[in-house]
């Protein structure tokens, strides 16, 4: 079957009424998550995994996985839409990849053009979503065709590359992100070893035999950690909200933003492909590029519509691009895709080169649902933006305890154990203090998810080579991956030594 046939089959899956409902709820919740400053896409997706697990319990395993992933992916790209709303109206980014949008978006809102800015952000996000999906469709299968030839040594090196890339870009200190990565990988070794069946680091505690559940750790670190931060630091948004007058942009606005949207989308897509880069870098680069290209750069920062259109398109395109390494290589390139990957694994679906062969319904269903979801987001966001703006005013008084309840409920519904609930609270506490002191959390979760796969591949490779570690250097592809990984870590160090400022990615 050709790609188009697969896509049509996927579309048929995505158009089943229950899946339409799942897309709708996914993008709706995603938008709300994006709007609310307390929760980002990572905690939003983590919190929804258990809820989707029960909602889909009546379906067959493959259908359940498809529907859940459709919803969770919807939350992911929906949050990118929602994040722009608060940036423009309140000058507070709802999630970190919308930081750049505040520069021009809030200025536009102050000039009474909030509606136009919001509309352009929605239209740009939509165009970018479509462009990145087209890229996804044409790149995912060839990439998995290459990846399927990889042996265990290549896979191990590829994962090293992925982890190094994320550590190189995440957070303010590379040393700290490397520590978090190593710590996450170590935590993944707790439990029964899947190769030889011996127990490791369990101390006879029965709860530890199955290992630390990734969902528990993710919910604790991100959702509960953020809640603790809000409680301790009295975060509140008391900024004045700009009024929305007219929603539809003028013809001139459309003309001015068409090219930035196109450029931002393409740039964002390719940045999203890179491991570790992700939406924040994409929006920064798109903004900088527009400013360089523009005929009147002095307009930027004073309400230039291109300064809203380009970064908003770029962060959405990046979230689409980030799906490619996840689906075709099985290697997440950012925190949110790492959590999505955890959801795949919970449904016993292994993302990676075999995904398109073994679960075509799931893979193409999810891709096609992203078309539908982007369309829904556009329809939802244009007329309903006033309602979403109201969501911002949800009092923290009610929101904060409710997020804790949802975390407890979600973890208990999947794990049925008090041990996991206490682990959530412990992880929340650790997450707050670590994040506060610039220890990035995403590498830890990524290590926890990739750990078992990485260890299996390493041991398989070493078994093939009779324990000779040179196998990782003798295979050319593996050597190449390790070399790129090394460069990824050393180049920022060299640049820093030379006194250059290095852009970092706070989300990943």
């Amino acid at each position, binding site marked *: 079957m050709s790609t188009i046939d697969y896509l049509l089959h996927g579309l048929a899956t995505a158009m089943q009424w229950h899946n339409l409902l799942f897309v709708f709820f996914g993008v709706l919740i995603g938008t709300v998550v994006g709007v609310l400053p307390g929760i980002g896409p990572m905690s939003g997706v983590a919190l929804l995994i258990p809820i989707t697990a029960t909602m889909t319990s*009546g379906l067959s395993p493959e259908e359940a996985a498809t529907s859940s992933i459709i919803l969770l992916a919807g939350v992911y790209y929906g949050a990118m839409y929602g994040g722009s709303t608060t940036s423009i109206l309140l000058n507070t980014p709802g999630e970190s990849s919308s930081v750049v949008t505040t520069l021009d978006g809030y200025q536009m809102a102050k000039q009474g053009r909030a509606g136009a800015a919001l509309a352009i952000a929605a239209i740009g996000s939509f165009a970018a979503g479509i462009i990145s999906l087209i890229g996804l469709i044409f790149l995912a299968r060839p990439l998995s065709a290459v990846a399927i030839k990889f042996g265990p040594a290549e896979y191990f090196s590829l994962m090293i590359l992925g982890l190094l890339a994320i550590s190189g870009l995440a957070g303010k200190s590379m040393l700290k992100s490397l520590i978090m990565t190593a710590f996450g990988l170590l935590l993944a*070794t707790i439990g029964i070893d899947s190769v*030889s069946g011996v127990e490791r680091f369990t101390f006879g505690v029965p709860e530890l035999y199955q290992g630390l559940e990734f969902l528990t750790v993710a919910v604790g670190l991100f959702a509960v950690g953020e809640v603790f931060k809000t*409680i301790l630091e009295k975060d509140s948004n008391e900024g004045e909200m700009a009024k929305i007058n007219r929603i539809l942009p003028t013809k001139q606005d459309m003309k001015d933003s068409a090219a930035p949207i196109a450029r931002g989308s393409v740039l964002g897509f390719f940045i999203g492909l890179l491991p570790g880069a992700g939406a924040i870098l994409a929006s920064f680069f798109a903004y900088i590029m527009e400013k360089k290209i523009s005929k009147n750069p002095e307009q930027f920062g004073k309400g230039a519509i291109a300064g809203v259109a380009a970064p908003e398109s770029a962060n959405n395109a990046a979230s689409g691009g980030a799906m490619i390494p996840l689906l075709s290589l099985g290697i997440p390139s950012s925190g949110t895709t790492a959590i999505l990957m955890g959801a795949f694994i919970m449904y016993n679906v292994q993302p990676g080169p075999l995904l398109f062969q073994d679960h075509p319904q799931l893979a193409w269903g999810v891709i096609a649902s992203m078309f539908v979801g982007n369309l829904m987001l556009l329809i939802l966001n244009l007329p309903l933006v006033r309602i979403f703006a109201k969501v911002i005013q949800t009092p923290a008084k009610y929101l904060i305890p409710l997020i*804790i309840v949802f975390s407890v409920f979600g973890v208990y519904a999947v794990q049925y154990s008090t041990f996991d*609930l206490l682990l959530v*609270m412990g992880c929340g506490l650790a997450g707050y*203090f670590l994040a506060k*002191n610039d220890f990035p959390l995403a590498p830890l979760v990524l290590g926890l998810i990739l750990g078992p796969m990485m260890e299996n591949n390493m041991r398989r490779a070493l078994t093939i080579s009779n*324990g000779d570690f040179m196998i990782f250097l003798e295979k050319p592809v593996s050597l190449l991956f390790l070399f790129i990984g090394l460069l990824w870590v050393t180049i920022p160090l060299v640049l820093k030594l030379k006194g250059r400022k290095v852009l970092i990615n706070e989300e990943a």
Partner: protein
Amino acid sequence: MNHSFDRYAGIVFGAIGIFFMAGSSTISSSAYGSSIGANIFPLFLGGCLLLLSVKLIYDTFRKERAASAKASLDYKRFGIIFIAAVLYALLLESAGFVITTFLFLLIGFQTMQKGRLAVSILIAACFSYGIYYLYVHVLDGSLPGFPAWLGLS
């Protein structure tokens, strides 16, 4: 940047590294005739973590201490909610979902901001029973119900 936190974190992470290295020496080092056992991966990573922590501790001594602006943290509010949350986790199974959730939400709402007790009670009641009803009766999931001695089942 808080140097003393970094130093303690470095010590803790270093200890974790040593702990995993020591622990992996007790794990069998071969599996089914292969010379590669379950101990290699944690041993190697424990070593990495230890080295990285040493570098982190070293860095905290090398850099001069930056004056850090102390933000006022609301420890009282946090303490109440955190203890309530831990009790919530501990009592969930014995006292049931609805009762613990209701109490936790009520305490949480009132701790975040005093006043409007009636609204708090209403919202807490709606959410605690609403989630339970939706999950157990509509979605056929399983949550600890009411404690048996209440006779509600």
